[in-house]
């Protein structure tokens, strides 16, 4: 088993639109396949996991079992606060939670939503769950927001601990910050596509994490095109294009040349990532399909498992079988 799945808590972040949710779901499927009791956590009222894997059954803000050993939850700060007060402060807390005034106060406090959210994530990853009767998870995968906001979620507990100094929030903040900084327990991974902007943002994310005393455990490079044509092929293709091919054949040759150019560009971006991050790259293949359903996600989970084991990734394209 790879080092990554030995962690109990994994934050998945990266630039917008690179496939963070997809990678989080694939990691969840992989964890469950290894026999780990796994939960995929979504934040900020996102609900993609349940929709992708279960057609949107079950309630949003509670732990929901998708398949044996695989759970999901979407964390809502309000919901997390009610639960926290009920468990930690007791009956008075319960009364407080239902006080509109207090709710408004808590939700208006800058950073409080982030703190409550990451606090609930932390609670899910504890061996002894705060939630009475709740079984512990072996693996908690967080589908975190894009890099900037993702970072602020990781930072908030420490900031609160520093400002509050003493008292329960300081105490709680310190405990969560220590968990996040514990490299044995927690890993932060970034998802990128082999394109210029996502690669640049991933490299800056690594630096920003480093200045917070955190490190990028792995970078998952998503949607990598397969290398189908080498330099000799390209020469043969260009020659063929000049001969009188049928329109369909010519279009196919042009598509092949274009694919070759894309692969070359993508290789430059992979090289940039490798130069900045070394061994921590895992590649996931491009999925040639209308959209990602369960079969494609299962394929990606396999590819991710293989990639994590070898740290190279085997780039075989994932395709939806032709419909007959």
């Amino acid at each position, binding site marked *: 088993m790879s080092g990554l799945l030995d962690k109990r808590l994994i934050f998945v972040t990266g630039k917008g*639109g690179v496939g963070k949710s997809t990678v989080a779901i694939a990691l969840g499927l992989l964890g469950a396949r290894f026999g780990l009791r796994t939960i995929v956590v979504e934040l900020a009222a996102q609900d993609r996991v349940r929709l992708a894997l279960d057609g949107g059954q079950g309630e949003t803000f509670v732990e929901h079992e998708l398949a044996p050993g695989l759970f999901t939850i979407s964390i809502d700060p309000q919901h997390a606060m009610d639960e926290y007060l009920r468990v930690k402060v007791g009956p008075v807390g319960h009364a407080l939670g239902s006080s509109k005034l207090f709710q408004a106060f808590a939700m*208006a406090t800058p*950073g409080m939503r982030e703190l409550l959210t990451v606090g609930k994530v932390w609670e899910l990853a504890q061996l002894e769950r705060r939630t009475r009767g709740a079984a512990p998870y072996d693996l908690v995968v967080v589908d975190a927001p894009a890099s900037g906001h993702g970072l602020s979620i990781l930072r908030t507990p420490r900031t609160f601990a520093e*400002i509050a100094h003493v008292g329960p*929030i300081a105490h709680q903040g310190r405990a969560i910050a220590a968990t996040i900084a514990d490299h044995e327990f927690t890993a932060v991974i970034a998802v990128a596509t082999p394109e210029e902007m996502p690669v640049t943002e991933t490299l800056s994310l690594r630096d920003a994490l480093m200045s917070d005393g955190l490190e990028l455990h792995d970078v998952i490079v998503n949607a990598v095109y397969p290398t189908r044509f080498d330099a000799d*092929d390209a020469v043969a293709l260009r020659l*063929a294009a000049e001969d009188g*091919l049928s329109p369909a054949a010519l279009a*196919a040759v042009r598509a092949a040349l274009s694919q070759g150019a894309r692969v070359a560009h993508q290789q430059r971006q992979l090289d940039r990532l490798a130069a900045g991050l070394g061994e921590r790259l895992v590649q996931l293949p491009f999925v040639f399909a209308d*959209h990602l359903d369960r079969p494609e996600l299962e394929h990606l989970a396999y590819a991710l498992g293989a990639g994590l084991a070898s740290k190279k990734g085997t780039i075989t394209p994932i395709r939806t079988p032709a419909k007959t």
Partner: protein
Amino acid sequence: MSVAALLEGKRICVCGGSGGVGKTTTSAAIALGMAAQGAKVAVVTIDPAKRLANALGLEELGNEPRLVEPERLCSGGLELRGELWAMMLDPKRTFDELIERLAPDARSAEEILANRVYRELSTAVAGSQEFTAVSKLYELDKEYDFDLLVLDTPPSRNALDFLDAPGRLTSFLEGRVLKMFMRPTGLGMRILGRGSGTLGAVLQRVTGVDLLADLSTFFRLLGTMTDDFRARAAEVEKMLKASTTAFVVVTSAQREPVDEAIWFRRTLQETGLPFTGVIVNRVHHEILGSAPGGSDEVAAALETGLERELAARVAENFYDYHVLARRDELNIARLASGNDDRPLMLVPHFDDDVHDVEGLLRIHRYLFASDADRARMIAEVVA
């Protein structure tokens, strides 16, 4: 329709859409094109990677617009008849400036800027980043003489966050919580004074005294600015709803971004914001206009000019491309219905994703072409 016709008579162009769809590049290409046509344009961007700044020949973009040297752009063969200015929004600094501007006096401003809750967490107030973006836009509109301002909206996962932001921020500032903290006999004072009362005692128990003291000051100080914030938010809303403002929805042709684009468009229409058109980036165009035959058929046709094994790979690759082209076609069809006859402009998926001047010019050529020219350019790309 070309973007030039679309933005005729407009003073503000807001580009919205979900993350990773090429919003920043599209905003810059729009600004560049309008500047080429003779307008004085500023593009306001949120580009943490600073790649765009470098591409435009600016080491670093500041929180005020800077002129992009025309020579930078001429090298790409573009004649610039107007001026292109660019700035990168610094949300923290913009928020600080807003506080300085709206605070009743210098001492209050100083006090809030020094407040630890404000200093460490102000950018975490829900919607504050989005609010500062549109607020900066408002200042640029009022204080500079640009013909057109192009705003690249913050990269929020929820493309609509920034639309709600002014309202959310003011309702937060107007909230009862603030009033409660502001009153000399209010909750804040009570807690700080004696820590009496159930709510106060529990709050203290939950937060700790230090944090509560900072929070109380933070709320009290912000509370003194409620009216000014509200006035500002109302002005901003008026500006966004004006007929001289254009909202352009930017998306890629994949399913999730298209879902968000449709939702974004509907919300614009429902809230009375001037929805102007859609730009779809990275489109895989159907090469033959209709589905090609099976891979075997193409492979057979290819075998006249290629080795059998290579022909098979070419056919396989062609089939995969076709799957993406069909996916894009379906999603674009979903976008096309409900578009209120507004333009839907397609930009092809290029073989690379260069974010330099050349890359901008390439996108610009598509956006500023007439429909007929664009169709011709696409035909050239794919055939």
